């Protein structure tokens, strides 16, 4: 039993089909509970009711970065082991990541307006997220532009590797460029800096919810990609006959 067995699309489809309903149920349950619980938390003494957007903002931002990381790993697996499901999973993850980045940017703007008095600030964190969004858009556009699916997987894989280096570099470059307005990390292991438990637990739950949501969307979208690939193969055979 190893993870490479799932390179076989049949095996992947069977397993993911069996797991999918459970993942969807868990995702809906934890996301809804996390968000509703978060919404019902008491108002913060400093930020008032606006703090509640954190339950949407932080998990989305977390996933936005981690989805790119996952795409980096799957692209590497494709480039090294020619693992087709892996390439399709990277393709399937990109739009989800782009939407997560967009959610983080938009909720950040909505939160920033009352707190900082501005919708947008050229702050390192905000700016590097904007750059991340550009990377997602370029990555998706490249997938759409190349016709041969294997070439597309190769090119986007290389782009993802180069993009990762530069996403990291941009992160530190913009830090250097402008010291920011954005608050520090919302979660920290140091006890003094942690959020109060009232906020922390619903935040954990909604982070878990967003992760499961991503997993569910990823499985659904990867299955769609595999089916689309099969359809294309069948049509090609039909045309040859």
């Amino acid at each position, binding site marked *: 039993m190893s993870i490479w067995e799932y390179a076989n699309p049949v095996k992947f489809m069977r397993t993911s089909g069996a797991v999918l309903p459970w993942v969807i149920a868990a995702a809906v349950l934890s996301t809804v509970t996390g968000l509703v619980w978060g919404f019902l938390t008491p108002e913060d003494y400093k930020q008032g009711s606006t703090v509640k957007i954190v339950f949407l903002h932080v998990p989305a931002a977390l996933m936005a970065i981690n989805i790119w990381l996952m795409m980096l790993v799957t692209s590497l697996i494709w480039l090294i082991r020619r693992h087709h499901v892996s390439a399709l999973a990277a393709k399937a993850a990109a739009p989800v990541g782009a939407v997560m980045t967009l959610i983080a940017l938009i909720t950040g703007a909505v939160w920033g307006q009352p707190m900082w008095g501005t919708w947008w600030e050229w702050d390192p964190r905000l700016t590097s997220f904007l750059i991340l969004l550009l990377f997602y858009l370029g990555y998706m556009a490249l997938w759409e532009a190349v016709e041969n699916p294997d*070439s597309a997987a190769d090119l986007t894989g290389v*782009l993802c590797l180069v993009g990762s280096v530069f996403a990291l570099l941009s992160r530190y470059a913009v830090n250097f460029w402008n010291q920011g307005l954005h608050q520090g990390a919302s979660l920290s292991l140091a006890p003094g800096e942690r959020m109060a438990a009232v906020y922390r637990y619903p935040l954990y739950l909604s982070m878990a919810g967003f992760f499961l949501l991503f997993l569910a969307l990823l499985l659904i979208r990867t299955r769609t990609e595999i089916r689309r690939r099969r359809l294309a193969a069948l049509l090609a055979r039909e045309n040859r006959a």
Partner: protein
Amino acid sequence: MKALLIRDLRLATRAGGGFGLALAFFLIVCTLVPFGVGPEGGTLSRIAPGILWVGALLSCLLSLDRIFALDFEDGSLDLLATAPLPLEGAVAIKALAHWLVTGLPLALSAPVFALLLHLPGPAYPWLVASLVLGTPALSMLGAFGAAVTVGLRRGGLLLSLLVLPLYMPTLIFGAEAVRRGAVGAEAGTPLVFLAGITLATLALSPFAAAAALRVNLR
């Protein structure tokens, strides 16, 4: 390698090669900006470092798809790929040729354009230094972008979307160096970062670009 470099330079400088296009575009940017923001010297000299760097970056972007597109169309790229010279080397040479015909003239003529934008006096050496150090990175990254999009119809548009986020760190450090130079602050640190980025792209981008070219030539 030398023959390839000379060939590319000849192609670029002779009729129809587009040599000077980048410079003309740079001039256009520097002419348009004062009309856009108003001719007051104070405003212009404050935004001049950024405008000059953005202008240099855009005019570099303009000529990127020429790096491989013509050779791809007439098949000489296939010959290069099968030549004894490793494809990585060919990529590096072609990026170097691109830099020699766009980046270097831009860097050397930038003080003239800076004059149009009222760049403060102490910033001139920093402007030239930052462009000389930074534009090779633009050419190397551009060569990667051009290699990725070479087989595509409408590749040019996609090329700018792919390459623009990659240019961000170079732009930040380049403009920062000029800005610090303009106010007389210590500008060495951003220049060191800029040199670091350029060296890193010199080391890595030929491999990425060659990998992308091999996929496109398959």
